[in-house]
């Protein structure tokens, strides 16, 4: 029993020392931060007056006290001081093990012996050395903070220059003065602002859905657009792909009439140009903040676009907008501009959503000769009726006038051929046929057949695949 008490007393004593050391550690830490914070009222001594120094000292004291209280309140589990003693006196965890087994009932002979042993080893030890002093990192800023505090006490109050920061909110007088100096339209804006309570027609961008197989926007002169909207658009144009799918591409190239018009840049349609400018003009600002000059520029631009074509549809709206702007009626001018935009958009949709080409033109001619598309027509909805697709019996589509008109362009002509498998004999016409990289299919066949035979001879092809390779080349030869 005496051993137990000795162990408990030793552990409790170390626990108390830990609390004191902790209080000192956290107290110093709190004091350092308190002193640093205390510099703030001293810097504002000019405003606080004689209360600055007591406030600074109070902050330092509160910081120190808070640290001390925190250190004292932190729990000290019994086994932790025991481990500290074990570590300090190299007791090989005797005391910590004994402390954990003090409450064990019944105790075995080894536990009894352990308690006796541990008690003997902690008796007459200087437990004060168990818990070393630990200095907080903040103690490094403590002298600097104290010195700064002392200097600020001695120095006269620091006066901050006034008007350092410009006023970001203009006063009412400045605003009135600025409005007086502005153009006469600005005077009418007050009236317009009062009237603009009704909800405005929202300008929305109606983007076209990108069709499957098209990875990017078609640019002018982009020949890869020939294969867009087809299932081979994403395939790599390597030789093996050519051997397997060359016929598919050639078939598509044969449908020259259904190819899109690559000479035209679809991204620069009238509506899109006008819409982008309108969007830039109206983005993120209120209607009363729209610059009349910018709006006038936009309306002028729309009028110019109307002269190129389609102006009869939205020209009236543009004219009304210009008139309203001249009268200083911004709201009416904006509404007229939005109406004009809507009409442009409707006209754009009627014309086939910007994709004007042989395919689109052919479809329009098929349905209603002489007209380019129809009202409410949707490209995807009628995809099955396009030439060469779905249920349309006309697999070649209408002939394109572009290729015939341009003798410098390239073209592919072909004839279907019946055999074991349907094939297509093709010839490249125009300047593309003079391209030195052009390889006629039937002439390279012999070279590749020779390479195949060499590969078979050198046994680089596995035995099981030899027959298949031979069959494949034989099938090609038959064509």
């Amino acid at each position: 029993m005496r051993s137990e008490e000795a162990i408990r007393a030793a552990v409790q004593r170390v626990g108390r020392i830990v609390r004191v050391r902790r209080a000192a550690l956290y107290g110093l830490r709190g004091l350092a931060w308190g002193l640093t914070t205390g510099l703030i009222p001293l810097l504002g001594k000019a405003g606080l007056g004689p209360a600055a120094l007591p406030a600074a000292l109070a902050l330092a004291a509160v910081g120190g006290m808070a640290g001390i209280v925190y250190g004292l309140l932190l729990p000290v589990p019994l086994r932790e001081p025991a481990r500290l003693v074990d570590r300090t006196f190299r007791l090989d965890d005797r005391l910590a093990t004994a402390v954990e087994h003090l409450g064990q009932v019944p105790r075995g002979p080894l536990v009894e012996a352990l308690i006796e042993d541990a008690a003997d080893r902690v008796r007459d030890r200087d437990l004060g050395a168990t818990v070393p002093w630990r200095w907080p990192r903040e103690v490094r800023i403590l002298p600097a903070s104290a010195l700064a505090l002392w200097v600020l006490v001695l120095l006269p109050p620091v006066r901050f220059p006034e008007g350092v920061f410009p006023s970001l909110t203009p006063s009412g007088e400045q605003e009135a003065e600025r409005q007086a100096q502005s153009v006469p339209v600005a005077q009418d804006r007050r009236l317009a602002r009062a009237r603009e309570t009704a909800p405005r027609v929202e300008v929305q961008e109606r983007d076209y859905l990108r069709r499957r197989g098209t990875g990017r926007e078609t640019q002018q002169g982009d020949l890869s657009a020939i294969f867009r909207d087809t299932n081979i658009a994403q395939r790599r144009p390597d030789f093996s792909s050519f051997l397997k799918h060359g016929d598919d591409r050639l078939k598509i190239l044969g449908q020259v009439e259904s190819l899109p018009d690559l000479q035209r840049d679809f991204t620069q349609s009238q509506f899109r140009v006008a819409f982008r400018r309108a969007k830039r003009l109206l983005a993120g600002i209120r209607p009363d903040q729209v610059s009349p000059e910018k709006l006038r520029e936009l309306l002028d631009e729309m009028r110019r676009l109307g002269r190129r074509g389609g102006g009869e549809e939205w020209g009236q709206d543009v004219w009304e907008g210009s008139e309203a702007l001249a009268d200083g009626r911004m709201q009416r001018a904006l509404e007229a501009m939005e109406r004009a935009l809507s009409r442009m958009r409707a006209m754009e949709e009627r014309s086939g959503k910007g994709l004007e080409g042989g395919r689109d033109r052919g479809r329009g001619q098929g349905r209603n000769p002489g007209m380019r598309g129809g009202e409410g027509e949707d490209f995807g909805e009628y995809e099955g009726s396009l030439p060469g697709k779905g249920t349309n019996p006309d697999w070649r589509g209408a002939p394109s006038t572009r290729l015939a008109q341009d003798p410098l362009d390239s073209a592919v002509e072909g004839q279907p051929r019946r055999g074991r498998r349907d094939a297509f004999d093709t010839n490249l016409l125009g300047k593309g046929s003079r391209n030195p990289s052009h390889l006629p299919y039937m002439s390279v066949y012999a070279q590749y057949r020779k390479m195949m035979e060499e590969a078979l001879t050198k046994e680089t092809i596995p035995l099981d695949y030899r027959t298949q390779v031979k069959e494949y080349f034989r099938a090609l030869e038959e064509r």
Partner: protein
Amino acid sequence: MGEERVERFGRAFEALRGEIQKVIVGHDDIVEQVLVCLFVGGHVLLEGVPGLGKTLLVKTLSGCLDLSFSRIQFTPDLMPADIIGTNIIGEDAEGRRHFQFQRGPIFAHIVLADEVNRATPKTQSALLEAMQEGNVTVSGTAYPVPVPFFVLATQNPIEMEGTYPLPEAQLDRFLFKLRVRYPALEELNEIIERTTRAEEPTVGHALPGDQVSGFKELVREVPIASHVRELASTIVTATHPQWPQAPEVTRRYIRYGASPRAAQALVLGGKVLALRAGRFNVSAEDLKAITLPALRHRIILNFEGEAEGIDVDQLILQVVEAAEVEARRGKEVFFR
């Protein structure tokens, strides 16, 4: 009473070690760890090139203990029945015939399984079943092996031709894997001196066999502090790359970590070391002293570890270091 038992254990341990060292030169750590295994009740796998005294060590140990000993030389054509025994037809006094079980060499207190990796897995498993279960089943009848039952298996790490390496699941059943290294120059001189003279060194019985079981019970009574137990668990868990706090070396080089048997081996081995030191409790240092033999055969390196030729022992030392740091993590500044 407790002190007296601990003292007796310490004396017996030192007496056994002294007797063995009359024959075995050097290898103090190997001798000590073999004795730790004996008192824990585990089995030992000794790995080393031929001629380093592995077999001699086991034979000497059996000579020091008053226990039965048998040696089984494992060969590819060794069959399970050659180890565990078989039923033979016997005849009683009245001339009636019946099957009677003829016990194999495994029925001994100390079994030396020499070159255990030379036998087929079927034969190896016959031995390993006895190690784990403590009995042998033949024709539906279980025959318990004698207590204490101590298997010391040896294997040669370089001659891999025609061998059947023990699978990881079977390796796990050995408490320790000890690497017998080549002796130093002075030790080699001493070996030559002792083994080339006329009289050969002899050993006497240092410990009665029945006391071994008593000491095994004493070992399990040794108390252990919770933080020491947690250290053992942390070390074993730190060998698992899946553990979120696993050290970098573990994630990089280890495929599978040690099993819970490794933690048991650490704690039990630590208890024997504590008793040997005359202590009544296990310390963290006891655990760290036996991490290598307890873990090295339970850690499986991944491809990167194998390709870079990572030494498992070095890896374990780094893992232990990281585990100690992990055990201190989150503690208040005074208790770190």
